[in-house]
């Protein structure tokens, strides 16, 4: 048995992803210790420059590329394709999210990858899947939220359906992709062979809606938009003097503690209220009473009292408050890395998945093409002269110091 410092040490990943889902999957693997090579087109990359930006680099980019090496090359040239073929031979994972069919047209179908390297795992991420009734459609995050019925159930009865603020579907799909790759790595231990992984935005959307759809298909139950009211009761957001606080008291023990805190012996004495079904029946009354109690306090006062009584609660933080929580910093969920364009600092994501025996170094953000030479001469066996020639032929690109155009 050998020693490695992190779970994915020794695994090499080629990241051809654009937009979100594929690059995010690669980013998770980087943070688990894999060597991730991001293949970037020449110079200006839409995702690097989108707003908002931190000194020239989009926060979008920042949040999914720390720790990746950058190889900048023009994949339309034969020479660049040759380089990529050679990289495939010495890599473990190939991630892409072009429209289904495109990667094959570029010359990198599964058949080609498999022939070059029978151990490679190809992770294909798309909007509607590599096969399926809509696999030819274009799509971005929210289609998964809309198609699956999730949007129709999110929000208040009096508002239109609502999407999540962040790209929930892209994020879920990235996680699915990583799970697929890791499972395939495990299978490879048993079989010696690689394989493909197929995950998509629409399916991610459907994965969250399983119980609702199962309920509907078995007896026609269709829930309504219900704001923040959760299954069981009482569980909702309540208005304090200076903002909202979430209170979750549908669990038996917590419910009883709430009754005592609010000094409501009549609630404890009412047998109907001792079951979840019963509390759901009376939820309007319960919420009204809790709301009145909470409205006497500020968020922080209410949180203090509720936490002391061991009642699950959480202030509904706005963005500034969210950045002030000790949770964010003590758990290392953001940390300061070097900005690749000016040597200053910028925050980048930490790692929410903590493994006790795996401590990879958390890498910095790269400038475009920063590792081109290192990779071509180090991982592949090109000479310095070869690399010069490739630059001259505009196959690969030198980094531009300062802020890219």
């Amino acid at each position, binding site marked *: 048995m*050998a020693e*490695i410092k992190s*779970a*994915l040490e020794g695994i090499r990943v080629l990241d051809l992803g654009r937009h979100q889902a594929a690059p995010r999957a690669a980013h998770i693997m980087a943070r688990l210790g894999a060597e991730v090579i991001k293949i970037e087109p020449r110079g200006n990359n839409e995702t690097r420059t989108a707003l908002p930006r931190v000194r020239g680099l989009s*926060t979008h980019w920042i949040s999914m590329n720390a720790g990746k090496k950058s190889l900048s090359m023009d994949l339309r040239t034969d020479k660049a394709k040759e380089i990529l073929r050679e990289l495939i031979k010495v890599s473990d994972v190939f991630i892409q999210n072009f429209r289904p069919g495109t990667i094959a047209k570029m010359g990198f179908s599964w058949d080609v990858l498999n022939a070059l390297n029978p151990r490679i795992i*190809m992770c294909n991420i798309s909007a509607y*899947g590599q096969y*399926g*009734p*809509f696999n030819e*459609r274009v799509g971005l995050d*929210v289609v998964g939220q*809309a*198609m699956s*019925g999730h949007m129709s159930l*999110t*929000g208040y009865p009096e508002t*239109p359906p609502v*999407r999540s*603020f*962040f790209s929930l579907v892209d994020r879920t799909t990235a*996680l699915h*992709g*990583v799970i697929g790759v*890791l499972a395939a*790595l495990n*299978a490879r231990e*048993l079989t010696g062979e690689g394989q493909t*992984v197929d*995950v998509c935005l*629409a399916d991610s959307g*459907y994965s969250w*809606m399983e*119980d*609702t759809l*199962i*309920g509907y*298909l*078995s007896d026609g139950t269709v829930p309504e938009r219900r*704001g923040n009211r*959760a*299954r069981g009761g009482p569980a909702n*957001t309540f208005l304090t003097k200076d903002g909202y606080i*979430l209170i979750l008291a549908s*669990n038996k023990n917590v419910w009883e503690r709430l009754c005592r805190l609010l000094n409501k012996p009549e609630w404890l004495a009412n047998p109907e209220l001792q079951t979840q079904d019963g509390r759901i029946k009376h939820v309007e009354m319960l919420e009204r009473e809790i709301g009145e109690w909470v409205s006497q306090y500020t968020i922080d006062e209410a949180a203090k009292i509720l936490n002391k009584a061991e009642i699950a609660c*959480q202030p*509904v*933080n706005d*963005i500034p*408050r969210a950045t002030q929580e*000790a*949770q*964010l910093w003590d758990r290392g969920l*953001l940390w300061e890395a070097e900005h690749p364009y000016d040597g200053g600092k910028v925050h980048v994501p930490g790692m*929410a998945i*903590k*493994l*006790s*025996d*795996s401590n990879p170094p958390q890498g910095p953000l790269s400038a475009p093409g920063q590792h081109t030479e290192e990779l071509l001469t180090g991982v592949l066996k090109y000479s310095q002269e070869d690399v010069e020639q490739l630059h001259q032929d505009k196959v690969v690109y030198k980094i531009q110091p300062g802020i890219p155009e």
Partner: protein
Amino acid sequence: MEKSTAALQGLRVLDLGRHQAAPRAGHILARLGAEVIKIEPPGNNETRTGVPRVRGLSTHWICMNAGKKSLGIDLRTEEGKEIIRGLVKVSDVFIQNFRVGMIQHIGFGYDVLKALNPRIIMLNCSAYGQTGPNKDLIGWDTVGQAMSGHMSVTGYPEMPPVRTFFSLADRTTALHGTIGVLSALRQRSITGRGQSIDVCLADSGYTWMEDTLIAYLAEGIAPQRRGNRGRGAPMNSYKTSNGWVYVIASQKNQWERLCKLLNKPEWLADPELQEGDGRMRKIEMLDAEIEKWTLQHTSEEVERLMNEAEITCAAVNDIPTAAENPQLWGRELLVEVDHPYDDGKVLAPGMAIKLGKSGHVIGPLSAPGQHNEEILTGLLNYTKDDMDRMKEEGVI
């Protein structure tokens, strides 16, 4: 290699999870082919009976327990604990999501597990983490949505902050936990050792908010609730004659195709609108005009016309329409399994993560304690007499 060998064939998982995050992680591992033994307490299990139910079994339970074996044990008894210790020795993964400190109190902290089996991988799911400033607080899904700021920026400006309909933090945490387990498995294949994993609802919440928080910390940008608009324009929900659609035409190519579809040459001629920033500035006008067009059609028509023109668009489906959509069935996202309480069938989740060679496994739902005998006499070395006695003593 045939497609029938599942990726986690031969792996054994002990699932002591309650509520959502931990059992869902167990469920993903089951579908990847692991043998997952769910330890169920005696008597009535809250999650089995919650509403809504399908012939006695909650949909909540159904959607995270198909394919798991059920071992009914009273973990408060010494003999029950002895059984678990025996199982730990022959298992690979141990999943739990009790309140922090509880699993140690019950007698199964990581140091105990490690001593019994140095290869064991322990997955700990919780509200705020095994360590950290909030580890002693209890919490369920929504705390992750609230703490991270996500709720505050979701929904409409004129309405209070809103949570997602489904338990997003639980689900994300389950996915994180699964990734942790699979990563630890890979590491174990080289080092021979297991390890413990720490994932939690609050941290999951923070992962979704990374770019927003980074922008705020660097530049002081604090977004407000913006309904269904996103980064870039046009990107919004639009009313149709019979519902809503969601359209994303914020990228150059799709924007141009939208202009052509809606017959707006003046938009193409306006240089300001050819830049994303410019479109954001004129967003009210764009949204109003697009909605004038969509209101003339049904959602189905808009979805069809836009997709034919290669513009990202999906109808905002209600539940009945979502349930009929070919995507759901063509991709086998729900499949029928045996209902454990009668001879009928019930729909259970399929597998959204498709592997080209490793088949996934959608097993049946178990009745409580259904596999007691198989596990106690087959996997461990208890006899039938032992089992009778334990039953009498309320251990199983």
